[in-house]
């Protein structure tokens, strides 16, 4: 299995305040990793390190065996949402096309290939029919799917999602997790989440993060006993989170 992400003894601090301490983690191709932990535990900081927006103070971090900055084109990122201007005049298709934009693409013209990739992304998440709608008019779940389509339009090998269900109701939440499970057949996924309950049945690795990180494999457990065993494993994680 190819290594998608590798962290070796990674630490990070803002000024003198240690945010992340000695993280070790390997994510392999096809994994579905959930990073959970309390607010302020360093989840967003970890994502920024992986995306190359921050540099670790100690340790090393590689994405597809490359420094994170150079691997950006291989990553599809879905930011935490809720901050979008409702009145922004932009169609869902235009939002998805943003995933195709590279820093040196000047002048307002996307190629046929860009459109094809955008439509592929929208079809994959079931919002192809919403292409011409104004983004601000979409429901919470449709917005989230459109943002996932935008990430997919970049044809990523790794999909990273920051709290993808934080602003949708629980029915939509389940839809989105099922969608991610479908996508996981083709692409490695790392997801930051605050709630473990729903996540449990879809993921194969859990990283519990609160300055320090503890990684659990859940894929080793057979499906028949998963609920039984998982309950105790959840408690164990919860316990270890209180570092």
């Amino acid at each position: 299995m190819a290594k998608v992400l590798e962290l070796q003894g990674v630490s990070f601090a803002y000024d003198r305040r240690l945010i992340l301490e000695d993280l070790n983690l390997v994510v392999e191709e096809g994994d579905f990793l959930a990073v959970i932990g309390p607010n302020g535990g360093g989840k967003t900081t970890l994502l920024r390190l992986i995306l190359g927006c921050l540099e670790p103070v100690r340790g090393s971090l590689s994405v597809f065996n490359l420094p994170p900055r150079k691997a950006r084109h291989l990553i599809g990122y879905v930011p935490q949402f809720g901050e979008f201007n409702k009145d922004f005049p932009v169609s869902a298709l235009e939002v998805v096309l943003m995933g195709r934009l590279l820093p040196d693409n000047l002048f307002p013209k996307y190629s046929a290939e860009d459109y094809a990739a955008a439509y592929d992304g929208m079809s994959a998440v079931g919002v192809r029919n919403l292409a011409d709608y104004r983004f601000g008019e979409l429901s919470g779940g449709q917005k989230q799917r459109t943002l996932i389509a935008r990430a997919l339009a970049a044809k990523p090998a790794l999909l990273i999602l920051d709290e993808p269900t934080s602003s949708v109701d629980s029915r939509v939440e389940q839809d989105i997790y099922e969608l991610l499970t479908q996508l996981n057949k083709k692409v490695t996924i790392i997801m930051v989440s605050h709630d473990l309950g729903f996540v449990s049945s879809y993921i194969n690795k859990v990283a519990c993060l609160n300055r320090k990180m503890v990684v659990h494999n859940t894929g080793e457990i057979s499906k028949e006993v998963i609920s039984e065993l998982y309950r105790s494993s959840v408690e164990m994680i919860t316990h270890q989170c209180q570092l």
Partner: protein
Amino acid sequence: MTEFLVALFKYGFIQNAVLAGLLSSLACGIVGTYVVVKRITFISGGIAHAVLGGMGVAYYLGVDPLRGAVVTAILSAVLLGLVNLKAKQHEDTIIGALWAVGMAVGIIFMSLTPGYNVDLMSFLFGNILMVTSPVLRVLFFLDLIILLVVATFYRQFLLVCFDEEYARLRGLPVEFLYILLLCLIALTVVILIKVVGLILVIALLTLPAAVSGLFSHNLSHMMGLATVLGLIFIMVGLVVSYNLNLPSGATIVIIAGGCYLGALGLNKLYLFMLRRKKH
């Protein structure tokens, strides 16, 4: 109206005023759209008022005030851009400081200049009827720069305005693009000062785009409609002010403001009817 048309063919200064209206509506339609969607009206106000400082100094030194305006506008745009990126927590205080200090510097230098300062009022409230041919050439040139830059970076600006964090993660030079956008605003402010004066600049920068935003589904449509609306506001304002012998800048702004209120009302009414239809 006929009176105005007769004057239009008779007097060069009215023709210049119409051309100046055309050039400024293009600038305020395009750049104003960014101001409205990115919600940076306050920054634009800061730049507009800081410009008075540069104009005052230029006036004192005997240089063309328009030149002082361009330099100060660009300088304050870069400064406010850096503040937004490096010291965001103090941003509104710094904008307020720049706003007030710029005006104070302008007023002091104007009062130091010997002679009677008839121009101060025209800086503050503008006078579209006093636009000369050399000024028109400068306005045309500034418009051209704005059009070229927006055409080149249209998609980049869209992404930065819509989702700055995502733009950064895609490796876009967000800092550069943001400061470039503020510089475009600075140029637009300079153009608009000639038409409505710096106190009323914010109105022309935001009102046409805000009305247009209610009816547009994408950014380029919003720019086009805002340009047309800006032109209508300016022309109607010009005609009304000419006929009633009112100050042109203030009349233009009153008309723009009235249309904005009207459009908001219509929009609310439309949404209300839509909801009732559904039930």
